[in-house]
């Protein structure tokens, strides 16, 4: 499964970059995120509740950051185990660039699901993924623009 998109954010690149590295912002933005903690500088541990059609699961997994270019972007590699519901893994490249007064966030993401999720959720997985992504960016945009407003 592939998901590529871009979003214009009403915030400076510095603000966006800061938010992209802020545990609380990420936690608040990820739909269904129940827990998130830092294991080390480049790795987070997260528990996310998610539902794909008839399969609902609590994924426990890790998010690792690599190819970090401050203010410009990074690569996220994620891996989550949902017990009998199956598993999900993948990566996403996130790139930032100036876009007028705001910032353009581009991402290219690849994910793979397995187990029950794949078996009975494949038909739904693309729409669930894009819905989850758009929800994430809605929340994320809200947080960063709020922060930007405060800073202004």
């Amino acid at each position: 499964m592939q998901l590529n998109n871009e979003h214009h954010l009403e915030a400076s690149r510095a603000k966006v970059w800061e938010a992209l590295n802020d545990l609380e912002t990420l936690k608040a933005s990820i739909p269904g995120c129940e827990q998130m903690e830092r294991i080390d500088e480049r790795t987070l541990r997260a528990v996310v509740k998610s539902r794909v059609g008839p399969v609902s699961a609590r994924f426990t997994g890790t998010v690792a950051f690599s190819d970090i270019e401050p203010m410009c972007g990074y690569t996220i590699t994620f891996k989550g185990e949902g017990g009998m519901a199956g598993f999900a893994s993948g990566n996403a490249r996130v790139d930032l660039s100036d876009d007028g007064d705001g910032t353009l966030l581009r991402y290219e993401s690849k994910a793979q699901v397995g187990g029950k999720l794949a078996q009975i959720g494949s038909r739904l997985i693309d729409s669930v993924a894009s819905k989850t992504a758009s929800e994430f960016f809605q929340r994320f945009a809200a947080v960063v623009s709020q922060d930007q407003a405060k800073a202004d």
Partner: protein
Amino acid sequence: MQANETGGYIGKRLLRREDEALLRGRGSYVDDLAEPQNLLHLAFVMSPHAHALIKSIDTSAARSLPGVFAVYTGEDLAPLMKPIHTEILFPGYQAADRNALAYGKVRFVGEQVAVVLAEDRYIAQDAIDLIEVEYEVLPAAVDMEEARKPGAPLVHDHIERNIIFEGKFETPEFEREFAAGEHRIRERFRTGRVAGVPMEPRGCLALPEHSDAIVFHTSTQIQHLVREGLAHHLGRSEASIRVVVPDVGGGFGTKAQLYPEEVVAAALCFKLRRPIKWVQDRREELLTNIHARDHLYDLEVSFSSDGVIRGMQLELLTNAGAYSTYPFGCTLETTGGSRMILGPYRIRNYMYRSFSIATHTNPAGVYRGVAQPSCMMAMEGMLDRIGRYLGIDPAEVRRRNVVQASDMPWTTAVGVRFDTGSYQQCLDKALEAIGYDEFRRAQPRDRLVDGKYRGVGICNMTEFTGMGAPAWRSRGLKRMSGIDSAALRVEATGKVTVSISHAAAGQGHLTTFAQIVADYLGANIEDVRIIEGDTAVSPYGTNTFASRSAVTGGGAVIRASTKVADKIRRIAAHVLEASPQDIVVRDGYAHVAGVTDLRLSFREVAEIAYAMCDVSLPEGEDFGLEASEYYDPPVVTVANAAHVVAVTVDARDGRVTIDRHVVVHDCGRVINPMIVDGQIHGGAAQGIGEALMEEMVYDENGQLLNASLLDYLLPTAMDIPNFEISHIETPTIDGLGGFKGVGEGGLIGALPAVVNAVADALSGIGVNVNRVPMRPAYLRSLIRSAAAEGGAR
């Protein structure tokens, strides 16, 4: 052995005895059986990975869930059972044993790694979700062609390049004759992985009995082979296991297997002395019941300018999946596809190489038709291509190559004898029925009429049925006998009880076997009762699959009936003071020929046989009125049929509609035309499904992407046309009764005919259709690219 002068039950459209109970909802399937009080429900943990090491299994949370009785891993159960091992004495085959519960390693998504026993199924299911299995994921081999390349991940370390079976064959003159043909065509045909998908999933109920025995109710087609398989793998005697088959809601070969769940359920019943029940859900059914027909045919023919085939060569790949299933193993699709492809055609020069490839996918097995639908698709597709190449009508190409009456008995290039058949007659009759010549005359060159491409397709097929012991010996299947049997008794009341070695999954045995008995014994059909599917009462045999019951069981029933009829004749002759040759047995009476009031009823004869009256038996005659007979049918009894199908393909969306579907079928002597038609209907529906929509889709990591009936498409009544069926009866002369099998023919003929019809419809725009399923997206993309090419020109 001639039928009694009587009866005429064979050939009648008698209503099925099975149907009243089934239609009133009074059938009793595994899940309907009464549950004993201390029943434990079994549920399986399945691997989410196609290939992985099992690092650890944490069962503690599941164990502590209230209502959970026990949790076992593969390691726990290994001491109770031998790995499932399929012995095949065939050069080129390598066994790939399977632990009923995996330990150490999993090799396909859905492989069972642990079990829960609980008070009810809900708790068992909840407990499953609490078991944490830690895997180390390994790369998987999923695609057959990739899997046999050097360096591909190995499914079993001892099987190099994943070639689990390799076969080859060449006729002596092949090279010279193949080279002599003026023209050659090469084509690659591909069939999608499908499954039988019976309406009733699998399940079993194991009940402890006596001190050390179990009664094992299971939804199977092969009660004797299951009993033997359980006894062997659990180290028990057959006497400690009674296998009982309840009503079965569809088999199709899917249930002609010994499955790991059955081994586990029986082992736990022996171990715990508690009743154990397991019924799979639909996801398990689609993940773990045998799959079939992921086949790839690279076929090349050499032919003369008149369309006559000079030689043919084939390379065939079949996908075996992760293990060799029990008892058929992974060689039947491979050998079948490469040997049955010759069909009813005079192909004397032939060469093949065939491979069964192990992959990290669910094991493949013997689904209705086995390789015949796919190999006939390749063969019949090739005949159409010869016609298109030479500008000869495809029907005419078939006439020029088909085995003629004067060729009979025909022996194929691979040595299979066809004793009788009606290959040309079925074809001609089917073409006439559909109005083939008018269809062709009316068909425009581009095939386009009112926005739809119209085509007609032919399949003139053979069906290998009722294989006997020599066939199974030559195919190396160690655990497959090939013989079947019947035990017939005229009871003291004159009623007739017949136990046969078969089991039914909807074939109507209770009706058809009664028809045979009534004719050959001379009984009143109302007095005949057939019993099957219970190892305690049904005599040993090879059971029900591969279109065998009418041929093998029919022969056994004829033998037993004839033997008892002869005894009735002797007893009646003794009492009526006539010669046995002058006694006619008919409708439950034995009378002197021409003197119908000088007669004895079966009851009166039975009372003499069981010493219940003053009349004594003739001198030297033993008590009783019964016979047990085995029958080993000929190597193979070959049935045939012609399917001719007319379709329209919507030019806008690629959707196929079957306008007409004509079948002219020859299964020799027809026992019950209604039941034969029913078999053809069901098979043809499955063939249409396979041609147009069905496919199990694995991604490159070995994840099955459509394990639900929302995503695995089956044909519905909306997709199935009215089948126009007629029969030609060419009785077999090699076997008893004249019967040929019919279970698989509908599917074998329908799939290639639909493919050829669609290919014909799209041939006007230069499109090459060479794979199934032909979903709208596939056909639409072909139509679109043809249009683009046409535009570019």
